[in-house]
């Protein structure tokens, strides 16, 4: 063999090897069982918030307050798409599944970053996406489950990415779509619909994980003759909103799913008079039947676009000399809620404003109903201003609870107010239906504001704030994750930073500038004895909207955050 031929042959051989090493299928994939989902191994992240209780807490502590300063990127991976990347990378024994906007799932070697396979959904060209994003894939046995923006649930073979089944949920042409990570319980794939701005009636639906067959569907708004329907007038309930676009949490001991619901539609309260059950609520559902066991409504007759879809965390709370099986929810409505979950009821325990609000005058002590100031409640035909803004004190990005510190960490937004003029608008199927002109929606910094984003640490037992870190020139729009290394990880700011804070003191211990802004949830995982931290950086959707609305109103407010998604993985430099 002459030298040239030998070189060529060698090149071809190595190319083949690279292809084999880099592309699937995955060998030795660990099937995901009910037990593993109930008690996930410390090194894995298989649920939206790692565990069914939704705490967003990792027991890993190899990366901790003493060595986090040595955290460095070990690999990155470009997703190839723009818009808001909101999904936590999902980890099962060394395999990472990344969901991105535009319906992609990328399976990667969690240690090396090599790609096994990539699923790309071919979305219909007339699809209309208000929130073109995805928040992750669910796992069961040897399959991966994706909820899509064209309103399908798709099951993929975990080893290869091949489609096993593909079930249509509702009609995307009527404004129905899905962005959440499916909740997997005992062979059921449970999702809830988006579309609260498009005149939908919200629902939660379960599918058989093996076949894709629908098992049950529970509407978040009761139909005619059902209990609660009398909290609506006429036919308002048929298009009343109450979308359910975030993953629920689950109590395996009582077999109860806790699922958050969205605002009543359209926005101005006098377009849908009544309490409007079960909008802006948490629902307690039986995962076997979908039957509603009980509920708690965070506020009545929503008029502010305050979805309460981020499901409450399940925390055993030591308070007043007893352990309360609590539900903790820092609400979009600016109230930090502590509730007690019981078999047949959800009881109000405590509530306090965690950011400035002029909407509530107080909370009724027995019922837990907030008392509204009508001067700040939007109605038809009048410009009404209110604080916080329609994005609320905390939007969908999740708070976290540390089992070590007993504190709740909230990605809050302070000093934002907003307003709009309500108007009666006829509903056209598949078109925006807000009850105001979209261009009329205001976002205004409160006079004298010293900061906007605020990472807060609260003691849920006492209602005292332990610490807070303020961001003078940025909103904070990203989920928070806590670890047993006494670290709090969060992105969410317009300076593209990813940060680690001391869980006890709030001291900023580490930061890394990334490619774009981070809205997604950070995670912690372990492979072969090494702990990693991972997050997707990719700005868009509402983080971008807030930014556009504030550009020019706040001196020095960064308005240039480049888009484009990248998966970042960090470890401590040895």
């Amino acid at each position, binding site marked *: 063999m002459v030298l040239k031929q030998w070189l060529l042959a060698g090149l071809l051989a190595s190319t083949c090897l690279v292809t084999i090493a880099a592309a699937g299928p995955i060998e030795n994939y660990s099937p995901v069982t009910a037990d593993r989902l109930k008690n996930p191994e410390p090194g894995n992240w298989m649920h939206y918030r790692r565990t069914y209780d939704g705490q967003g807490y990792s027991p890993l502590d190899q990366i901790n307050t003493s060595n986090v300063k040595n955290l460095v990127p070990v690999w990155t991976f470009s997703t*190839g*798409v*723009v*818009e808001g990347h909101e999904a936590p990378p999902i980890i099962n024994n060394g395999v990472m599944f990344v969901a*991105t*906007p*535009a*319906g*992609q799932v990328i399976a990667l070697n969690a240690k090396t970053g090599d790609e096994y396979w990539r699923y*790309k959904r*071919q*979305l219909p*060209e*007339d*699809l*209309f*996406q*208000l929130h*073109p994003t995805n928040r992750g894939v669910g796992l069961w046995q040897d399959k991966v489950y994706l909820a899509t923006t064209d309103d399908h649930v798709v099951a993929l073979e975990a080893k290869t990415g091949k489609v096993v089944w593909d079930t249509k949920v509702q009609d995307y*042409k009527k404004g129905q779509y899905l962005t959440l990570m499916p909740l997997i319980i005992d062979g059921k794939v449970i999702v809830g619909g988006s579309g609260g701005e498009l005149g939908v009636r919200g629902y939660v639906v379960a599918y058989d994980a093996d076949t894709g067959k629908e098992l049950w569907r529970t509407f978040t708004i009761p139909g005619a003759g059902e209990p609660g329907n009398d909290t609506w007038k006429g036919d308002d309930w048929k298009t009343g909103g109450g979308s359910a676009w975030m993953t629920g949490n689950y109590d395996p001991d009582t077999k109860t799913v806790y699922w958050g619901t969205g605002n009543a539609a359209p926005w101005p309260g006098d377009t849908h008079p009544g309490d409007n059950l079960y909008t802006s609520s948490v629902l307690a559902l039986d995962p076997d039947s979908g039957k509603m066991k009980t509920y708690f409504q965070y506020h009545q007759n929503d008029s502010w676009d305050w979805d309460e879809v981020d499901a409450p965390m399940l925390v055993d709370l030591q308070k007043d000399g007893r352990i309360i099986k609590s539900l903790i929810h820092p609400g979009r409505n600016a109230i930090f809620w502590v509730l007690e979950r019981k078999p047949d009821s959800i009881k109000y325990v405590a509530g306090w404003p965690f950011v400035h609000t002029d909407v509530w005058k107080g909370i009724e002590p027995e019922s837990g109903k907030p008392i509204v100031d009508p001067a700040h409640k939007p109605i038809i035909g009048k410009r009404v201003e209110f604080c916080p803004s329609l994005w609320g004190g905390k939007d969908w990005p999740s708070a976290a609870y540390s089992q070590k510190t007993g504190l709740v960490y909230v990605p809050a937004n302070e000093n934002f107010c907003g307003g709009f003029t309500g108007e009666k608008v006829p509903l056209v199927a*598949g*078109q*925006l239906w807000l009850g105001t*002109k*979209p*261009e009329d*929606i205001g976002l205004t910094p409160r006079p004298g504001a010293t900061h906007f984003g605020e990472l807060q640490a609260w003691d849920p037992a006492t209602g005292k704030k332990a610490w807070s870190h303020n961001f003078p020139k940025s909103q904070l729009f990203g989920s928070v994750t806590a670890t047993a290394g006494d670290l709090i990880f969060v992105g969410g700011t317009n300076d593209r930073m990813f940060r680690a804070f001391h869980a006890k003191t709030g001291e900023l211990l580490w930061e890394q500038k990334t490619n774009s802004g981070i809205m997604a949830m950070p995670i912690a995982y372990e492979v072969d004895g090494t702990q990693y931290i991972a997050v997707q950086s990719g700005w*868009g*959707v509402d983080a*971008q*909207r807030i930014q*556009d609305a504030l*550009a*020019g109103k706040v001196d020095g407010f960064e308005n240039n955050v480049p*888009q484009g998604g990248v998966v970042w993985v960090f470890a401590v430099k040895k």
Partner: protein
Amino acid sequence: MPGSNERPQKADVLVFSEGERAGEVIKPEDLKAGGPPVRAWPKDPRTSVVRKGSRLNEVLVVKLDPAEFDEETRSRAAGGVVAYSVICVHTGCPITAWVKAAGGDKDVFKCVCHNSEYDPRQSAQVIFGPAPRRLPALPLAAEDGPLTVAATFVGKVGAQQAR
């Protein structure tokens, strides 16, 4: 309805898609100079089929001062009237607003979903926001009568797709 899904064709007329005059054929004199734009469906004059079977067929029609047009826009205009796809090329929302540009004093098309802005005087060039490219233009003609479509859409209608 056969043909209702097809993209606008040469010689189609345009009809109002909303409001009191929904369904009526649009003439240049029906439009107010300087905007706001109206939304319109193409209609096949031979079969009378309104092509509203796909939301990708709807257009924004606006009458402006031709002196402000760039060369491409002028070549596609009829009596100062220009037409563009109503579908924002970012994520496919309908463009609903006619407001002052974020960086100027002229009214422009704005998609309120994600704040993309397009200037209809400059071939619907993106002047603000995340949209990756111009809106597809629908070339028009008008000879002593209603507006007619002079050629098919310039560019692909609809949102960008993942690469």
